[in-house]
């Protein structure tokens, strides 16, 4: 075999031309292979290809679903003004709470006022705790 001038084309042609020829059909082998298929059914024989129009409809429906989901997501994540927050003018220091609670010598009016204030502070503290816990959990 002469192997001079081994350009890619030469080699490709040589490979193509020297490929062994196809043999004859072996009827016995084919018969045996087909015999094994008796009683079997192909998988997914009833599967139908979807109609091209149905495909388009499916694509449009999928697009609408995606667009709707995106809109819902945008709506739900948009910043909203906070609703019913308590209006606080001034909040006294919690360290002074003990001194206010322990002033029995004050006149009745002042004592009542003080008691109201203590009650308000307790409520406020509870509300604050609740809100802050809501943020955390």
């Amino acid at each position, binding site marked *: *075999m002469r*192997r*001079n001038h*081994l350009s*890619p084309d030469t*080699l*490709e042609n*040589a*490979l*193509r031309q*020297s*490929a*062994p020829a*196809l*043999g*004859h*059909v*072996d*009827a016995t*082998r*084919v018969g*045996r*292979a*087909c015999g*094994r*298929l*008796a009683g*079997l*059914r*192909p*998988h*997914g*024989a*009833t*599967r139908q290809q979807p109609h091209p129009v149905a495909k388009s409809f499916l694509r449009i429906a999928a697009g609408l679903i995606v667009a709707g989901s995106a809109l819902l997501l945008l709506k739900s994540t948009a910043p909203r003004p906070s609703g019913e927050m308590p209006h606080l003018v001034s909040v006294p220091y919690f360290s002074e709470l003990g001194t206010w609670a322990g002033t029995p010598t004050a006149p009745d009016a002042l004592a009542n006022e003080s008691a109201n204030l203590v009650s308000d502070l307790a409520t406020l503290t509870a509300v604050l705790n609740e809100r802050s816990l809501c943020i955390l959990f």
Partner: protein
Amino acid sequence: MRIVAEGDANAFRVIAEALDPRLARFFSQLGVPEADRDDLFQETCLRLYRAAGAYDPQRPFLPWALTVARRVMLNWHRARKPTVPLEEADDVPDRRPAQDRCAEADLWGFARARLSPGDYELLWLRYGEELEPAEIAAMTRRTSVHVRVLLYRARATLARALERDEAAHNGNRGDT
């Protein structure tokens, strides 16, 4: 294949008859002994028949059938892979056919003896079965570019081996 997919086993006989010489040559070229080719052919036919519903008529049939045949063959190779303890490995005889051990007159035999099985398989699929690189890529689960690169390297290796062989041949002739 559409009729086969509806469960007509007789219609498959025509396909099996068309495939028989193709697959016999395919298995023969890729190192399957004659004794095992019948089993592999039957297994391939069985798989093709069972998967007839999944066949896409828009695509060519032969690459699809060869893909199935190749997987059957790889499973067969895997199942019969001999394992030998390391200390006995030196005593394992070379089981390659005699035609592979010596440089052959025919080009494909020469290529089989010189190239790795993977390179040889790619060359065979491209030039023996006349498949396109994209079809080989789908068959071997590679990209088309990868297949082209591997084919280029396999061709280059084969060309070098042929040139070396030619040079050695000329040298021997010159000595005598």
